């Protein structure tokens, strides 16, 4: 039997760039085929060709052994190819049914939407593949993971046999990702085939049947999870040996740098997001804050950096009370802040790299004298930082928007860590980055620690927390439920704390008088409802981000 899909010597040139260079790829029925590569390796270009958004300059596409021409997404859909984009294409104010019907409406009596028939089919699809979703829910009310299911249902509704998932886990919590993997298996069991685009090594090893690695537009190799391991895959992706382990000096903590006491912070809707949190970060240590996204981390970091007012409690930085200080004061006291959303808060994308490198020091000497910016100095210092932080940019006058995500993050890291810094607040510092950049940024954070800086690392990537932290605080529903030392922490233990399942003695005390909670081991019901709450928050933030994108 011929493969479901076969790409032969696909080549695509853009001005000055060979995006795809004679790429061969085949997909068997019922297979999960991972397409692995760094950002900009050419994965997305290849899939856009397959989906009819680009035309290849050379090469052929075969489906079930028959050659096809794909000129548009409509051709792709007719050929049984469906794609779930990284950013969902759903209309928030429509119901699930309406979203699924959109573009392939079933009609009755010549023009009236047959909603009932559509709903019925959605129910069938969702029970057949284990895609739990209520067709009558509005998309805006659904957590991100469920929205993704709606996207998959859309493809199945159009009878797609080949599903392309573009970085599907980038927006998901670890739990949601696990759900997605289950769904992917149930799809392949029923004869669907999946191309899974990603740059996350662990996921690939967990779920793929076959792995094709692309680097700079070329296929550098094909392998299976049995034959490969993380460092081998990383080396294939990056083109050199990558050191995934983190080397740091022995843990010798110094004086308290950041002291947070009974901190209370509200979120945008006036709900308590950070509830009576206390911790300290000492010189020469990394305190990791682990937690599923949306449990108050964002608000906590914003309160510590002066971007959000604290409702109660105190924050001390060295010997100064900074509870009500503004961001500039906190920066001047020696805080580096690597913000969670680099494009939203950390950079002005339309500005050149040089301006972004002085975004919060532009007013100081030598960058300004009196009211006048010293542009020659700014450019000179920018050149130095671009070199010393290995920022890949054609020049310091290039706009930040045209850099890759990894290099954008390096701009921020360069700006924040080239000042004399006593405290580093790093929030999701490697989210969405490629292996090379992650390695680099981890190295820089550890360097700060080894040089006697205090590092507060907030991340929802458990691996990252475990690798870097000397102590791990777990945040759940706005409370620190436990603080573990690195030796005591196991992935399982932290994972359970993150899910709010295990509660320790200290945490119980903290929650006393707030609300009587069911017993520690908690029925699965509380667990799911807790997760739902966390996810809901996340959705609303995701929705906001989409809106912001539209605005710009």
């Amino acid at each position, binding site marked *: 039997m011929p493969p479901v899909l076969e790409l032969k010597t696909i080549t695509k040139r853009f*001005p000055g760039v060979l995006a795809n260079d004679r790429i061969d790829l085949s997909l068997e029925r019922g297979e999960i085929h991972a397409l692995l590569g760094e950002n900009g390796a050419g994965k997305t270009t290849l899939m856009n060709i397959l989906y009819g958004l680009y035309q290849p300059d050379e090469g052929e596409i075969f489906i079930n052994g028959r050659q096809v021409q794909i000129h548009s997404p409509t051709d792709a859909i007719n050929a049984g190819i469906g794609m779930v984009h990284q950013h969902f294409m759903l209309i928030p104010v429509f119901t699930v049914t309406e979203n699924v019907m959109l573009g392939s409406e079933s009609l009755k009596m010549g023009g009236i939407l047959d909603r009932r028939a559509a709903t019925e089919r959605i129910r069938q699809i969702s029970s057949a593949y284990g895609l739990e979703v209520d067709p009558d829910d509005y998309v805006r009310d659904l957590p991100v993971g469920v929205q993704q299911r709606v996207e998959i249902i859309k493809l199945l509704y159009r009878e797609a046999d080949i599903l392309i998932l573009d970085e599907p886990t980038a927006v998901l919590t670890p739990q949601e990702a696990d759900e997605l993997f289950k769904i992917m298996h149930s799809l392949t069991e029923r004869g669907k085939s999946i191309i899974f685009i990603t740059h996350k090594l662990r996921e690939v090893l967990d779920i793929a049947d076959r792995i094709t690695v692309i680097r700079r537009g070329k296929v550098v190799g094909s392998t299976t999870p049995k034959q490969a391991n993380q460092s081998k895959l990383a080396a294939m992706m990056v083109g050199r040996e990558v050191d995934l382990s983190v080397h740091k000096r022995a843990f010798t903590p110094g004086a308290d740098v950041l002291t947070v006491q009974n901190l209370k912070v509200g979120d945008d809707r006036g709900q308590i997001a950070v509830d009576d949190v206390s911790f300290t970060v000492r010189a020469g240590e990394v305190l990791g804050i682990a937690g599923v996204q949306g449990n108050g981390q964002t608000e906590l970091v914003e309160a510590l950096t002066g971007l959000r007012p604290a409702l109660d409690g105190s924050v001390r930085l060295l010997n100064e009370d900074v509870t009500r200080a503004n961001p500039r004061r906190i920066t001047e006291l020696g805080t580096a802040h690597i913000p969670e959303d680099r494009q939203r808060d950390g950079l002005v994308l*339309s500005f050149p790299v040089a301006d972004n490198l002085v975004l919060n020091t*532009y007013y100081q000497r030598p960058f300004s004298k009196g009211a006048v910016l010293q542009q020659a100095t700014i450019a000179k210092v920018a050149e130095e930082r671009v070199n010393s932080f290995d920022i890949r940019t054609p020049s310091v006058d*290039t706009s930040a928007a*045209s850099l890759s995500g990894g290099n954008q993050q390096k701009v921020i890291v360069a700006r924040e860590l080239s000042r004399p810094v006593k405290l580093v607040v790093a929030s999701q510092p490697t989210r969405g980055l490629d292996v090379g950049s992650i390695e680099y940024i981890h190295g820089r954070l550890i360097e700060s620690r080894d040089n006697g800086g205090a590092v507060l690392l907030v991340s929802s990537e458990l691996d990252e927390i475990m690798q870097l932290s000397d102590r791990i605080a777990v945040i759940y529903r706005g409370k620190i439920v436990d603080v573990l030392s690195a030796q005591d922490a196991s992935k399982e233990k932290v994972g359970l704390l993150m899910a709010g399942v295990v509660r320790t003695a200290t945490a119980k005390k903290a929650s006393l008088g707030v609300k009587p909670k069911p017993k520690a081991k908690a029925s699965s019901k509380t667990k799911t409802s807790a997760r739902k709450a966390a996810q809901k928050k996340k959705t609303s933030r995701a929705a906001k981000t989409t809106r912001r994108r539209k605005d710009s």
Partner: protein
Amino acid sequence: MANQDSQSTPPKDKSAFGIFMHELARGSLIVPILAIITGLLLGGLIVAVTTDQVYTAWSRSPLEAIGVGINAALRSYSALFNGAIGNPERIADALASGEAAALRRAFNPFFESLIKSVPYIFAGLAVALGFRAGLFNIGAEGQLFMGAVASVYVGFAVKGLPAIIHLPLALGAGALGGAIWGFIPGWLKAKTGGHEVINTIMMNYIAFRLSEYLLRGPLQRPDTTNPISPFIETTAQLPRFFESPIRFHLGFFIALAAAYGVYWLLFKTRLGFELRTVGANPNAARYAGMNILVITVLAMSLSGALAGMAGANEVLGVNYTLAPAFSSGYGFDSIALALIGRSHPVGVVLAALLFGTLRNGALQMQIAANVPVDIISVMQALILAFIAAPAIIRTIYRLRAPQQQEDGLHVRGWGG
């Protein structure tokens, strides 16, 4: 990944004009220029189809009708040219005769166009400055009125000062009047979040009615019942460079200086950096420790001051008095103008010269070619529509879409 190499070349020449030329080369100015050309072509078409003779000719032969139409369009554009730049024959004659008065008359249209450009430059800079700070200042017209009111008052009420003091004082009063009118919506936005679009529109109405009231009350000329102010003292007049009929005055050079000043402020100073950061990404501005409230208020006040200068220049340089409706919508046209000029001072000056020239030539077009003045408004509207919807121009001329996102407007959404 297709776009990694194309937009990387930085401007070599860091001067104002260098940056402007760099943007031109990068293609972000191709669209406005093509939009202008397309607007002029379509304007000609409109002239043709609104000419009666075309229809009488049509009944004889379509070919003849096309000829007549082209003729009509050419005739009106040559009238426009004569009115805006000068009649080449008359210029040649005057040069041949060498007579001073004839020369002045021959070159007068060109200088009139420059005079008409002055309020456009000021008001365009006002709007552009707002755009750069992420503010949509619709209130330039009202600020312009308040500037005119303030400077005319200082111009006629203060007596006995030498020109060297009186003129700057009157100009300063105009800037201050506009600044106050910009400050109020800026302050409202910073303090209460009231959207500047709404508030500046409302401030416009207050300015119109307030100036009318003043012209019928405290500012009215004593010997008349018309709503008109007394003439300003000669010491407050902007000096003219030539004898009558050329009215070309110092205001033009003040406007150019203001354009350079705005450029310098935006791109060379701390405040400008803050202003542009707040405009481009207010979240990053907050993160960087900038005081968004102060910068917003400051930007609106500065914008108002520039618009006020537009009014002051009309009063002190051209009219020497203030009457209602003295501004033919300079403040509103300037919104369009700032867009055409890509909110860059050089672009604003060029666009203002274009607008001034068109406005000045329109009059001649009406007299000589019997084409209604409104055609010019239609043409301006077309040019604007093309600039606002670059996709149309790109489709017509098969230009490649820019690799980078359009950041031409420098304005955030209505959510502000």
